[in-house]
């Protein structure tokens, strides 16, 4: 159910703010987000962005909520993970609440701290990217 700024702007016009302020829009967006009304939050953000082009907080909220674009990029190739996934299926349970890094059929690093695993990976200078997993 719409309310506040959303109700007042049902027949939206850039020239017709009807007294809505950036703060009232941001408050309405917060309400919508907390209610998981994502489409409504995005609609409010779009309207606010048009009405208040110079308001930094409004523009930032609009930028973050607006669906992003995709593009192809080079690099980022991974090896076939069958061996790694098989190791994870058979062994990950033993590393509950830990970060594990697996490459091929082998465990490369394991620790409750992600930073330690990343440090080990950096020192190992592996030729291929291991798969990283948090065993929840």
């Amino acid at each position, binding site marked *: 159910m719409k309310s506040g700024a959303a109700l007042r702007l049902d027949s939206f016009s850039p020239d017709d703010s009807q007294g809505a302020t950036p703060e009232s829009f*941001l408050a309405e967006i*917060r309400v919508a*987000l*907390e209610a*998981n009304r*994502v489409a409504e939050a*995005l609609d409010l953000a779009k309207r606010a962005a048009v009405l208040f082009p110079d308001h930094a*907080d409004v523009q*930032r*909220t609009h*930028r*973050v*909520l607006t*669906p*992003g*674009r*995709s*593009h*192809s*990029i*080079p*690099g*980022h*190739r*991974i*090896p*076939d*993970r*069958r061996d790694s*996934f098989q190791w*994870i*299926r058979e062994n990950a349970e033993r590393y509950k609440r830990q*970060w594990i*890094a697996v490459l091929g059929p082998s465990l490369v690093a394991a620790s409750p*701290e*992600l*930073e330690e695993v*990343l440090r080990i*990976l*950096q020192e190992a200078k592996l030729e291929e*990217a*291991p*798969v*990283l*997993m*948090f065993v*929840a």
Partner: protein
Amino acid sequence: MHSLPILFGKGGRPFATGMAPYLDRSPEVPPTDPRIYLEVQPGTLPCPVLALVDTAAPWCIFTPAIGKILQESFEPESKSDVRLSTRLGWYWGRLYRGPLTFPVLEGEPMEIDATVFLSAEWPGDNFLGYEGLLQRMRFAIDPRVNRFYFGHLE
């Protein structure tokens, strides 16, 4: 970069330009929970991490340890926290915008500007959500060989 399709849709139109293997969770996991793990490399994380594909979640969510890394480069939606409902309950945190990269076994890697929810209290796994990410790509799976295909919307 001109993308060559590796999976075609209706009428021979490109559907997917990249493919990666996925890990499916053990049968002991409740059937109501997400089952597919896919590799994703968020922001400046130096290697890909497994995250659960969850079309029931609006946003991507990452563990606090990864969140700490992402907060250094991702753009926050606001200066204050918001309380969001998730499959594990209500959590305070912030929404951020930043790039997520999907590495590939075949085809072309893809990067998407995603919206992610980061909370220092988050006790769960990494998730790839719908409105914040999955809705911005085409995807399909081949469960016979555990392959996840993805491509651009436009």
